[in-house]
């Protein structure tokens, strides 16, 4: 069990040892399932689109599942991407990787992580309205609670990094950058995917955000 320090150093060291271990290409019949979770409005659809396009650029088949309509009004949301030589089901019931843009949503979806899977968690809280009016409270000890599910999780201060880049909204792309170290395709696939997925005026900051996420170990 690793306990984190204030600068996420322990996470970085541990992540370093794992990053790249999954980078060999997928064989026939193998599938990678990545689940994104967060709160409506945090940019999950963009994150899934960038990952899907990167996988296509690397020559894989993909399927993406999204949530629209009533589920978007500030509620808990999820999106998923499945990657392989050939993908059938668009939905997943367990994930090789979970990318959580918010800590409570990390906990809510943690049981979907496969044994041996990895979880990247943005070190950020958004309080749901239910904690202000009810008997429930926000889990302030998210890190300890996550250990009940898995030891393979890493906190990333993505919102703080995004703020330093000039826009907190690119925290999603920072998380994608960190995830990219684990995916079986190279940086070119990712950069092309960002160009295809992000509108022109937001391109530069998203590329910076991606690189900042990819460099989070440094």
């Amino acid at each position: 069990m690793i306990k984190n320090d204030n600068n996420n150093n322990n996470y970085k060291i541990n992540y370093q040892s794992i990053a790249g271990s999954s980078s060999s290409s997928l064989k026939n019949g193998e599938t990678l399932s990545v689940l994104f979770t967060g709160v409506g409005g945090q940019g999950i659809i963009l994150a899934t689109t960038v990952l899907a396009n990167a996988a296509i650029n690397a020559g894989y088949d993909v399927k993406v599942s999204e949530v629209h309509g009533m589920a978007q009004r500030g509620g808990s949301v999820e999106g998923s991407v499945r990657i392989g030589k050939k993908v059938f089901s668009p939905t997943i019931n367990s994930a090789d990787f979970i990318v959580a843009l918010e800590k409570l949503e990390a906990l809510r979806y943690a049981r979907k992580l496969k044994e041996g899977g990895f979880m990247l968690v943005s070190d950020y809280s958004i309080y749901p309205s239910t904690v202000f009016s009810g008997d429930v409270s926000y889990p302030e000890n998210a890190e300890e609670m996550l250990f009940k599910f898995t030891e393979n999780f890493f906190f990333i201060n993505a919102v703080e990094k995004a703020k330093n880049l000039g826009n907190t909204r690119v925290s999603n792309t920072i998380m994608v950058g960190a995830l990219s170290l684990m995916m079986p395709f190279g940086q070119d696939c990712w950069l092309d995917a960002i160009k295809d997925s992000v509108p022109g005026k937001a391109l530069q900051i998203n590329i910076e955000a991606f690189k900042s996420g990819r460099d989070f170990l440094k």
Partner: protein
Amino acid sequence: MADKLENKKNFMLLTGNEAIARAAYEAGVSVATAYPGTPSTEILENISKYKSIYCQWSVNEKVALEVASGASIAGSRTLVAMKHVGLNVAADPFMTLSYTGVTGGLVIINADDPFMHSSQNEQDNRFYAKFAKVPLLEPSDSQEALDMVKDAFDISERFDTPVLVRTTTRISHSRSLVNINPVTEVTPVKYVKNAQKFVMIPAYGRQRHHFVLERWEKLQKLSELDIYHRVHEPEGSRKNKTLFKHTGIITSGVSFQYAREVFDNIAILKLNMTNPVCKGAIASFTEGKKLIIVIEELEPFLEEHIRLLNLKADIAGKEFFPAYGELGTRALEEAYSRLFGREVYTSNAERGKAGQRLHSSDTGSAADLKTGNFSDDGINDKSCEISSIINELPPRPPVLCAGCPHRSVFYILKKLKAVVMGDIGCYTLSVLPPLNSLDSCLCMGAGIGQALGMEKANPEFKNRVVSVIGDSTFFHSGITATIDNAYNNGTNLIIVLDNATTAMTGHQDHPGTGKTLGGDSTICLKPEDFAEAAGIKNIQVVDPYKLRKLEAVIKQELARDEMSFIVCRRICVLIEKEKELPVAYIDQHNCRECGQCLKFGCPAIELKDGKYSINSILCTGCGVCVDICKFKAIGTVK
């Protein structure tokens, strides 16, 4: 995959809805209509990007289908899109459209919503195709959505029938790779008057019913063609080949994808056309098999058809798969265990690189089909602990946005202990705590009629019962009910929550916005004018941000012994955030910690460590909460 790589330029990652829009373009459609409804909304939004297609939001699905029918009679290829419950609204023209048939091809895209991600029921609309005797196609990914919609236009014209294409939420809203083709040139058919085909008086209707029955025979033959079903031979390397050789799966739509992944060792008959059902193809597929597993979401639609064929094989259907919600690989794995053994099943595809697991061999004994014999292995301590953690997490339901103009109306209705007959839209969320406002929500436009029924059934509801309805919903199906209230001497109160858009589905225009789907300027209708035309005397228009005025008006109109109509008018906060509005704050000095402000249910008002505060990032400066605090602890800062 190789061909995909070579022609990467022709491949796009599209949702089912985007693929359907592309199909309309490639098929040479010239008219498309819809009323927005999740999960179908983005079909028309994407069609509107193709300038060669005239497209429109209709006031409701019935009118959308009628406009489409007219365009078809005029000779154009026409597409109409709606969600499952929308076809209920359009059922009247739909059923007789089966008799009249078409001139230009007419395709109805029907989007079902298993699990009710954003719907009030999860009805299975495959029965509508059977009911009306029209062909039904069911795509299982975006590529098939494109191919089938294009083919549906050919079927429609060749067999003189409207064609239903049924998607489900996972087809509409999942993305997969699609091969893009150029547009087909279609010459519109010249209009020739044909009363015996299009005027459904009883004498002509009788003739056309015979036509429908003859057409049904032809469609049954069509369904036997190879392109409407496909056998997928097993690829998996599971043991007990003999057992699985005598087993077969019949499925369609997204269920095929789950089946192909989990039951990769069993032959699958995938139906692309599910009405009529290809009896001959099923008979030859099941020949020599001992067990047929029917995998479908919601109702046992295919299963009933298959059971009627009196096959020799046992049939495993709804006793192994739930008749509610969505299927998924998990549900199929459970069924697999119940059918073939108790192992915790992981398919080849789900066994990803990260999570390698041991995979035990099959036990090989088929479960008792009669009882669905299955016992759980028991729940261990760790999963108990995990369940209790998850159960204690605070839920995060969707909420009315900070600054939503609807909130103050429900706050007051709750305060006045009104009985509130609700309707379909964002404001349905007011049923949740802390507003707990609605007493009813049935279907589009229902609340207004329900309010009249309440007061007629029991006079105690006079001066208490209110109906609330959004502007888009009012135009959809609230007008006739308003007339019914006025005509039958109702004395209740109708409140229209007019935020100048169809908000829940993502801000579509309607007759009250002054814009069409194509972006043209047009008339801008006002709900209060309809109330006036219906002879309602007491009509008020108020700004729901003015809490005290709003409360006074609602109180006054509720007390009246005649019909009243209030329009609460304020544009959706997501469309137009007024800039420079001073955000609110709580003066800790004056705060008595009574908690009244939390009962307003605004996501910007927070209670942290026993202190009430307002999140200045979320606050839109609507200022309503200032009037809610009777201790004057809430103020605004420039």
